[in-house]
C-alpha cells in the first residue's frame, strides 16, 4: 500500500513520525433509553490530514469545539476514529485493539492542562513519576527506580529531595513540572501537550514554556502543542495547524503563518489577539468576526467558514469545498479567496512590514 504525500511532506523535508489521512471522528447522538437510535452525530473531526515530523513542535490551534483536542486524543489512540488512517512510524494504528496498542503506549505521552486534577493527591511525587515504570515493568529494583525518578526530577527542575512529598505541597508551576517529568519517564517519541500553560499565572507560564523548549532541544522530542493562546503557540512551535469546525483550514511554518496568514479565519484569529502595546493596538484595525461558531452537529456545507467569512462569495464558497493547497508564501490553506498582502497588513499585528 502506498501512502500519498500529505500536507507538510510535499517539500520533502524531515521524515514523518505520525501521518494522519482523512481522519474522521463522529460522536453519535442518540435518543431514547431502551430503543436507542442514532439521531445525528457531532462531527468533531471531519477529514483531517497532516503529518507530524520527527523532532518538530507542531501547534494545533483553534477555538473551543474546533476538534483540536479530539485530534490529539485520536493520535494517542485514546479514541478510536470513525474512519481514516493514523500511521505511527509507518505502522497503521487507527483500528488497533487494546492489546495491539500496549507496546505503543510507551512511545506516546500526554501533558495535561490542569496540574491540580491530573495528579493523584494521595500518591507521593516519587510514585507518580515512577508509575509509568511500574506499568511497563522497567527499573524494577526499588533503588534503581528511585534513582531514575530523581534524575527525571532534576531534569525538569524539581528538587530530587522532594521525592516523598505530595502534590499539594507544590505550587502550580511545580506541579506542571511533575506532569512533564511523568510524561518524559519512558522517553516517548511523541509528547502531546494539551493547553499545558493555560491554567498557570503569567509569570509561571514562562517557566514551563522555557522548560518545554529546552527539553525539546535537548532530547529531540517530537511535540504536539495544543493551545488557544496564539502568542504562546507562536513562541513554542515550528509549524502550526489551524482548525475550524473539525477541519484543518491552514497549516504553515510558524513565521509564515504569523507574517502572512492566507485563510481569512487565521487572519481573524491573529487580528483578535490583544497586543500588549497600546500604540500598536490603536493602529490596528481589529477585524471582529460576527456571530458564533456553528454547531458541529450540523456544520455548514462546502467551506465551513463561509457563514462568517468576510470574503465569502455566494455560489462558490457555499457550494464547492476548498481543498488544502499551497498559497502564496508557501502556506497551505483551504480557501478559494485567500487573504492578499494588503488585507494582511491592515489587520494582522505580526504582518511583515
Amino acid at each position: 500500500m502506498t501512502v500519498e504525500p500529505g500536507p507538510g511532506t510535499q517539500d520533502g523535508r524531515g521524515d514523518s513520525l505520525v501521518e494522519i489521512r482523512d481522519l474522521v471522528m463522529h460522536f453519535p447522538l442518540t435518543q431514547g433509553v431502551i430503543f436507542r437510535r442514532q439521531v445525528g452525530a457531532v462531527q468533531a473531526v471531519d477529514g483531517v490530514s497532516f503529518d507530524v515530523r520527527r523532532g518538530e513542535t507542531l501547534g494545533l490551534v483553534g477555538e473551543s469545539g474546533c476538534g483540536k483536542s479530539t485530534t490529539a486524543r485520536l493520535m494517542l489512540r485514546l479514541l478510536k476514529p470513525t474512519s481514516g488512517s493514523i500511521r505511527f512510524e509507518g505502522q497503521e494504528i487507527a483500528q488497533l485493539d487494546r492489546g495491539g496498542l500496549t507496546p505503543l503506549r510507551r512511545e506516546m505521552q500526554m501533558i495535561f492542562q490542569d496540574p491540580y486534577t491530573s495528579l493523584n493527591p494521595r500518591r507521593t511525587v516519587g510514585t507518580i513519576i515512577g508509575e509509568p515504570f511500574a506499568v511497563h515493568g522497567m527499573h524494577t529494583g526499588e533503588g534503581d527506580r528511585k534513582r531514575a525518578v530523581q534524575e527525571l526530577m532534576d531534569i525538569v527542575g524539581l528538587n530530587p529531595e522532594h521525592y516523598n512529598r505530595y502534590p499539594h505541597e507544590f505550587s502550580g508551576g511545580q506541579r506542571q513540572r511533575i506532569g512533564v517529568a511523568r510524561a518524559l519517564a519512558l522517553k516517548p517519541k511523541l509528547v502531546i501537550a494539551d493547553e499545558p500553560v493555560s491554567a498557570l499565572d503569567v509569570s509561571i507560564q514562562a517557566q514551563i514554556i522555557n522548560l518545554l523548549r529546552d527539553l525539546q532541544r535537548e532530547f529531540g522530542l517530537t511535540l504536539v502543542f495544543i493551545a488557544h493562546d496564539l502568542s504562546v503557540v507562536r513562541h513554542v512551535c515550528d509549524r502550526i495547524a489551524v482548525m475550524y469546525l473539525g477541519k484543518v483550514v491552514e497549516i504553515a511554518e510558524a513565521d509564515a503563518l504569523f507574517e502572512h496568514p492566507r485563510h481569512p479565519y487565521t487572519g481573524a484569529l491573529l487580528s483578535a489577539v490583544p497586543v500588549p502595546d497600546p500604540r500598536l493596538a490603536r493602529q490596528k484595525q481589529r477585524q471582529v468576526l460576527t456571530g458564533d461558531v456553528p454547531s458541529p452537529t450540523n456544520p455548514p456545507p462546502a467551506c465551513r467558514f463561509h457563514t462568517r467569512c468576510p470574503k465569502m462569495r455566494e455560489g462558490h464558497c457555499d457550494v464547492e469545498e476548498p481543498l488544502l493547497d499551497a498559497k502564496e508564501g508557501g502556506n497551505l490553506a483551504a480557501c478559494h479567496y485567500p487573504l492578499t498582502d494588503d488585507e494582511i497588513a491592515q489587520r494582522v499585528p505580526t504582518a511583515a512590514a
Partner: protein
Amino acid sequence: MAQPLLEVRDLRVQFDTDDGVVRAVDGVNYSVGRGQSLGIVGESGSGKSVSSLAVMGLTRFQGARVTGEVIFDGRDLLTLSDEELRRVRGKEIAMIFQDPLSSLHPFYRVGHQLAEAVRAHNDVSKGKAKERAVELLGMVGIPQPQRRADAYPHEFSGGMRQRAMIAMALINDPKLLIADEPTTALDVTVQAQILDLIERLQKETDAAVIMITHDLGVVAEVTDEIAVMYAGRIIERATTDAIFDAPQHPYTWGLLRSIPRLDLPRDVELVPIEGRPPSLINRPSGCAFHPRCPFVRDAHKKIDPDLVAVEGDPGHLVACLLTVETRRQLWEKLRAGADPAEAREAVPLLSKEA
C-alpha cells in the same frame, strides 16, 4: 479638577483564618473619573479581585474586616447600611464576572433575569421591564433578541452568556462598571467581540470602567490607566502608555518580559519571574517583592517603599527603592533583551544609593 466618580482611599481588607490574618488588600488608593477606564493587573492572590469586591460591599458577609474609604459620587460606600448599598449595587455600580454560567440562574429564562434586574431598582411594570431586557439584549449584539429573551442560559453559547451578563450589568445605566476577568473564559475571537462591545458601550454611556485582568494585552487595548498590584498593594500606577513605554517597577518589567508577544520577534527569550507570589499572612519584610526581585539590595529587605511619584512625572507612581536613574538604565538594558543578571551587572546598583 472635578471630583472623580470613584475614589478609593487606604482600602484594607483582612480575613481571619486559622493560620492567621490574611491581608488580602493592604492599603490601596486609586480613583476613576467618568468615561475613564482603569486596568488593575496582577497575578492570582495579588488582591485585585478582592479590592473591587470590597468596593461593591461583597465581602461584608464573609468575615472580612474592611477599612478605609470608598467615595462614590460623594458618598462613602463603606459606611452605608446593607439596604442603602443594595440600592447602589446593580444600579449605579454594576459588575461583570469571569464565569457567565455561574452568574446566570440556570432555572430562569434570560429575559426574566434581566427584567428582574430592572424591577429591583425601578418601579415599572413587568411588560416594560421585559421590553427593556429585549432592548439591551439587542444592544449587546444578540441576534433575534425577542426570541432569545425566552431562552434559558444553557441554550446560549459562552460568548452569548457573557453578552447577556453585560446586558444585565448595563440595564440600569450604571455610572461605574467593574469587569473582573470578563474575557478569560472566552476564545480570542469572542474576546475581541466582547472588548469591542465594552469599549463601544462605554463611549455611548460615558460610564467609568474598572477592568481587572491578568492579561496585559487586554489592558493595553482598552484602558487609559493601569494599576499593577502585588501582594495586596498597588506597586505601580500610570497611564497605559507609560506602563508599556517606561515601566518603573521590577515586577512590571518581569510581567512584560515573561509573556510571549506577537509584536516581538519569535525567538526573543522569555524571562520568567523567579519564585512565587508571597504569602499574604506573612508578608515579606521590607519591599514585598524583594525575595523575587533580581535587583534587590540589602536595604530593600528592611525598608518598605511608599507609592510615590516618579521624579519628573507626577502622574506616574511607583513603590520601589531603586533610584530613577538606576531604573531607567535597567529598563533600557532589559528592553534591549538583556536578562536580569546581565542588566544588574551592567548597571552599578551601588554607585549612588546609600
